[in-house]
């Protein structure tokens, strides 16, 4: 598929995977005020197509699209009533589907809130994203502890708290509950993806059967918050299992990292230096072992907010200028990087050595920092031999080096058949 000789492709040990996280005009709250921003276009298909096409020009593995079931807010659990920042957004799954036919290689991971949505609906939505993108769909699962979002559904209540209260017993209990529910959610979604075996559609004219019902399976999922019978209404998607990602931070409860260990193909984590990266990788790997998935691939992507300019002083000045516009210094759960593409490349390589397999960059200003990634950082990483020169696969799993998983039900059926055959031969 690639026109580049294979020796020019990065070897798997040193290769970096690169993604961008797309959110409105960019991650800095004043990003929309930059001359390159298109603040009146944020709700148009053209805006999103341009961003994702730019990311694809840079050969990135995938984009994630942020989402939430309430208005953006600087407050952790409530709306903040601000009118000087971007407010209002479109459903991320629909955005991903809208750009899918207009792109050809890049992976598409919309954000889905597990707390208030139906695993059955989301399973078929992401399966369908995989169909409309011919194998480039994925999903980033998120929980919502926002009180106002719960009130939009009226099915459960959430206490009001501040970010400083995160380690209080009540909030800890809430965190564990939400993340455990999200793990159940992912399990139900994954079972639904497998609930049709590959090749279940047989179109057997002789017997008049369109499907082989033996290849369709009830999933019979029962969890603390919901149960799902199955099978799905949508046949198994092209990738079998579209990759599932989640952002997770360190917590005394361990619940976020446990979700990665139990349920994810892709973990987004937020180390601020190589030492933290090493510690986080160790914690997540331990959760993975505990979940009995030690041998399975689980990519860990470091998240960084980036301000990129050819002159490092210019990047720092840009952040300051935006901070002044916003009226406060922008802070983030992720490390905020200001500097040149080459300095960022140094940092990524250093963090990469700590065990991260890729990076999800959050452009501070989408219109500025995304092209700086695709046209500045990417060529720099290519020069260093750690990034691809052409897309080497047509599916997201292919780009991430993840095999197409066997169907759990087909595998179980095969084992049962083997056992039966054994029984016959030994009898």
């Amino acid at each position, binding site marked *: 598929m690639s026109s580049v000789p294979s020796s020019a492709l990065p070897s798997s040990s040193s290769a970096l995977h690169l993604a961008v996280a797309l959110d409105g005009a960019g991650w800095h709250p004043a990003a929309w005020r930059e001359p390159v921003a298109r603040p009146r276009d944020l709700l148009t298909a053209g805006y999103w197509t341009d961003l994702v096409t730019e990311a694809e020009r840079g050969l990135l593995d995938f984009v994630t699209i942020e989402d939430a079931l309430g208005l953006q807010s600087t407050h952790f659990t409530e709306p903040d009533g601000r009118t000087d920042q971007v407010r*209002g957004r479109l459903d991320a799954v629909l955005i991903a589907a809208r750009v899918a036919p207009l792109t050809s290689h890049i992976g598409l991971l919309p954000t889905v809130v597990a707390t208030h949505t139906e695993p059955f609906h989301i399973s078929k939505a992401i399966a369908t994203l995989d169909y409309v993108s011919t194998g480039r769909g994925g999903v980033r699962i998120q929980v919502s502890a926002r009180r106002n979002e719960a009130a939009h559904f009226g099915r459960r209540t959430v206490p009001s708290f501040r970010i400083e209260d995160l380690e209080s017993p009540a909030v800890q209990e809430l965190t564990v509950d939400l993340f455990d529910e999200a793990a159940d959610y992912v399990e139900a979604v994954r079972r639904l993806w497998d609930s049709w075996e590959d090749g279940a559609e047989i179109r057997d004219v002789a017997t008049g059967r369109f499907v082989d019902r033996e290849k369709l399976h009830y999933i019979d999922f029962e969890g603390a918050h919901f149960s799902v019978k199955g099978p799905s209404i949508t046949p198994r998607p092209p990738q079998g299992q579209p990759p599932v990602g989640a952002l997770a931070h360190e917590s005394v409860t361990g619940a976020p990292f446990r979700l990665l260990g139990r349920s994810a193909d892709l973990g987004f984590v937020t180390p601020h230096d190589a030492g933290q990266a090493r510690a986080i990788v160790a914690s997540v790997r331990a959760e993975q072992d505990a979940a009995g998935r030690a041998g399975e691939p689980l990519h860990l992507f470091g998240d960084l907010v980036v301000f990129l300019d050819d002159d490092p002083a210019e990047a720092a000045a840009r952040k300051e200028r935006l901070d002044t516009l916003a009226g406060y210094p922008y802070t983030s759960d992720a490390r905020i990087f200001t500097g040149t593409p080459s300095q960022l490349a140094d940092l990524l390589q250093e963090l990469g050595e700590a065990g991260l397999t890729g990076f999800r960059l959050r452009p501070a200003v989408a219109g500025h920092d995304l092209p700086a990634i695709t046209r500045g950082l990417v060529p720099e990483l290519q020069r260093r031999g750690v990034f691809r020169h052409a897309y080497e696969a047509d599916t997201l799993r292919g780009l991430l080096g993840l095999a197409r998983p066997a169907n759990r039900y087909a595998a179980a059926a095969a084992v049962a058949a083997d056992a039966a055959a054994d029984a016959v031969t030994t009898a």
Partner: protein
Amino acid sequence: MSEPRKPLKQIHLAAHFPGVNNTTVWSDPQAGSHIEFSSFAHFARTAERAKFDFLFLAEGLRLREQGGKIYDLDVVGRPDTFTILSALAAVTERLGLTGTINSTFNEPYEVARQFASLDHLSDGRAAWNVVTSWDAFTGENFRRGGFLPQDERYSRAKEFLATANELFDSWHGDEIVADPATGTFLSDAKAGAFVHQGQHFDIEGQFNVPVSPQGRPVIFQAGDSEEGREFAAAGADAIFSRYATLKEGQAFYADVKGRLARHGRTHDQLLILPAATFVLGDTDADAAELAREVRRQQVSGATALKHLEFVWNRDLSAYDPDGPLPDIDPDLGEHTLARGRAQVRMYRDPLATAREWRELAAANKWSIRDLVIETGNRQAFVGSAETVARTIDEFVQADASDGFILVPHITPGGLDAFADTVVPLLQERGVFRTEYEGTTLRDHLGLDRPAARSGSAAHGERAVAS
């Protein structure tokens, strides 16, 4: 001829992607995928080439079962409605995009958000067919798990739609200022604010999708019962009906349009668009012959027996589909045999239906399969392109409908011949557009944009409410 002629009604046409029903002929060598995006893209492009008003997708949320087993004789499996429609918005420019979405197994905030997003991403082409399935069988796939007592499904549907409309109207269109110089993004910190307290929903907050190009998506309704008709007359823009014959169509049309005045609405605020299958041939005789073949492909012996079971509510697998009808009577009471099927609800008096069918079969010497072929899915329009164009026009001019939602029996190419041969004839007759006049689905359907509440009036309301 001296009398001034009534101006001709303009016909509305839409395309229903077939599949998951017994009109679909999947065994035909020309039948393609029902799930690959290329099929949907081909179908949508054909509909748009033909200047159709919209593409229509049905919904099903659980695989059907019969006799405790997953039904395997029809097409089963379909993509997610919102996702496929959003992707189709990328490969079309004007075609409306109508999705059937249930009001029982969803929540208003989420559905309103999805439709508002689709309307933005398609530049004003979204429509919602509000359906009301309620059964516990389907409910087993959802968090609520449960089912809704049948008599509550329309009360939930009504409140669901009303709530969604409150959310669609919660932004007025002038809130996004996005002025970098002053730093004002929103003119109103309370944009999207809503409070809804009712029997089914008790929710409040702020809707996070600003007003979409059409204000609200176009609303379709598919109910047929008394409550369904009232629901449609009160608040729908269009009805997707099952009456595609002249007499039944006229009766339904008169009934539903007659209800509008009571709801303070005018005759042209509700369009009646029946689902209609068609078979085209070079001549009427060719088409009739082809139609017979299609019916035999649609109704295998096994399919015929299963169809009979919808009425009999008994296992009839021991019967010969090429033999006579069962002389035992239907099992009355709760239908336990076929689950997840709309047809089961269609036959409200099984004993009467069985009697009628036996008489029909005896009089015509029909086998079980013959009977199902003859009485089952009617092909609405069978004939040459000239015949079909003329008949469609006559039906619409005679107020049997305002147009049709066409259901071809082959995916995805089943619309091609219609687009190439029937549409030009309708255009020649002056009853179908040759170009889209507008850009939104409301434009195509001749529907007004819902009255936008002015920002200041809305402020006043909120001030009163708070």
